């Protein structure tokens, strides 16, 4: 397994055991079936609770049943899940970083006790509603609104591109609170079986097919006033969640690229043409050398991010750089692996083309590549290009 500059050699024992457990789980329980799920457009839902039993959801949080592992261990977990499929990592990212994290960071004691153990165990599934049909890269222009009515809030609006919404028990919905001066953005915990809540599935995706995506439609959906996350107001609520999730993506992209590389390397040494393995040709060796180099430099960035996060010095812009770089890297290397596999590269038996298609989603969600470019541009010049 590619780890060219031996970064994994410096992991502590606990981190190695977590990496090995995740790697083995994916290898033994998921990998054989994931291609068929991808073709069928289904998520292997029996994995929801299995991954919960293993503690794969937000293991880097403290308390409420979370084991509080290191940020590196959490990153390694995301890397190993995405080495199988971006949809698998997305499941864990959404459940952990986008649902459990905001409840943990901004929720009331009652909300934490009600939701965190169930979500952590995979007994409940959560989703995160921020993006709207007309508001993607600019979520602060969101139209979804909440109005206080007695001891309830009435929610109206529509969220889309919501991973897991069709299978979710609870949605973290971000909406403008019209009952408060300045209409601040607030987070609401909305059970999906409430009247006025529908979660239609989005079909015919050509990417991230082994992951369920849908809408969250709110039509006079009433929630009790204690459904609001008390600890945060404004866009820093949803944005801080995205920083957590993007951190996992920066690691996950390394996993997807590594799987492409390993598949291509194996193929290049096994496949014989013109009287020997194709890996003896300079054309193939150049591709492998470049892939390995790109993966290794992205991996270095992920490890540095973990250090910064562990000691509390991680800025969202750091995460933007890593998400932007590492996903672009994986998106560029996956087709190289695909082409090395020749005709065999276009069937679901081999992972690179599946990764390649998945990475189109990863390139676009959680802040598009271009938006992360502008975040870095603003950070470097002090001038925001998007305001």
């Amino acid at each position: 397994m590619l780890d060219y500059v031996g970064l994994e050699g410096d992991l502590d024992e606990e981190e190695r055991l977590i990496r090995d457990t995740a790697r083995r789980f994916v290898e033994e329980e998921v990998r054989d079936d994931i291609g068929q799920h991808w073709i069928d457009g289904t998520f292997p839902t029996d994995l929801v609770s299995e991954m919960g039993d293993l503690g794969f959801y937000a293991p880097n949080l403290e308390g409420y049943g979370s084991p509080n592992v290191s940020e590196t261990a959490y990153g390694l977990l995301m890397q190993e899940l995405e080495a199988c499929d971006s949809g698998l990592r997305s499941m864990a990212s959404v459940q952990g970083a986008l649902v459990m994290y905001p409840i943990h960071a901004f929720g009331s004691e009652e909300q934490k006790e009600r939701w965190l153990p169930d979500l952590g165990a995979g007994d409940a599934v959560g989703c995160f509603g921020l993006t709207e049909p007309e508001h993607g890269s600019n979520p602060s222009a969101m139209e979804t609104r909440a109005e206080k009515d007695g001891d309830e809030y009435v929610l109206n609006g529509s969220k889309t591109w919501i991973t897991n919404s069709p299978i979710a028990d609870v949605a973290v919905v971000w909406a403008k609170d019209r009952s408060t001066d300045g209409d601040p953005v607030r987070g609401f915990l909305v059970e999906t079986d409430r009247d006025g809540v529908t979660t239609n599935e989005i079909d015919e995706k050509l990417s991230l097919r082994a992951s369920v995506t849908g809408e969250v439609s709110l039509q006079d959906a009433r929630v009790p006033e204690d459904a609001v996350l008390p600890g945060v107001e404004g866009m820093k609520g949803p944005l801080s969640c995205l920083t957590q999730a993007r951190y996992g993506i920066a690691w996950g992209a390394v996993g997807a690229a590594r799987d492409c590389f390993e598949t291509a390397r194996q193929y290049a040494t096994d496949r014989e043409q013109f009287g020997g393995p194709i890996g003896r040709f300079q054309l193939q060796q150049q591709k492998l050398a470049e892939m390995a180099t790109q993966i290794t430099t992205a991996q270095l960035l992920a490890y540095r991010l973990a250090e910064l996060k562990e000691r509390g010095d991680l800025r969202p812009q750091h995460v933007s750089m890593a998400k932007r770089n590492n996903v672009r890297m994986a998106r560029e290397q996956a087709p190289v692996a695909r082409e090395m596999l020749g005709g065999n590269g276009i069937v679901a038996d081999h992972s690179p083309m599946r990764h390649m298609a998945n990475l189109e989603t990863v390139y676009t969600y959680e802040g598009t590549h271009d938006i992360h470019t502008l975040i870095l541009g603003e950070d470097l010049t002090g001038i925001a290009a998007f305001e």
Partner: protein
Amino acid sequence: MKVLVTVKEVAAVEDDFEIDGLSIDDRYLEYDLNEWDDYAVEAAVQIAEAADEDVEVVAATIGPERSEETIRMALAKGADRAVRVWDDAIADQTLLDVNAKASVFEQVVAEEEPDLVLTGVQAADDALGATGVALANRVGYQWAAVVNDLDYAAGDDVATVRRELEGGVEEITEVDLPAVLSIQTGINEPRYASLRGIRQAQQKEIAPHDLSDLGLDAETVDGALELTDMYEPESESDATIFEGGAEETATELANVLRDKGVVGE
């Protein structure tokens, strides 16, 4: 009650490797918990989890400090603590034979006084497959080898076991405790360690012992077996591929089987 599980870190060799003298270079080895022992650990943890009384599961291993990482996996899966025996005298052996292992574990059993000892049927690397039974003989426990089904609840005096015999024959038998059972793969479905389990395992004890701690001396592990050579055997098999339709190839195969005396005329 107490269940002792003997576990071993075994080395798996990569497809391409080089032999250097009497060993394979470390570069080509990956260390892991012996597969059979994984089933034995699971069997022990299941007894503990189903029990009304307190059941302590202790893992015991003979291995260098490096093996602690592997043993930690057994702790992460639910064993309560571990005992690790190592000594320069053990490291000096080219091959630690069954007698030597049984001597070491005999002392561990004397210290721990377990009601039940579970071992894997064999280790994936040296495949001697005798440590469990040899240990039972030493400590005077009852024993059953190659157990692929176990009906036992903590506190019972008797374990009902199904044993896998030669030729697809199975035997169901009862074993009085204290007993040593060697556990076959497939008896259960070993769990994955959860992240919580892995965290907790960091706090669990792996007590190191050398031979003198166990009241043994260096001669104890001087076995009758010595590793004298290591080489890759030449492949002696020739493959013949029959081509053509099923009828044709079946006839050719039948001729070969008859010629080789596999089937009668």
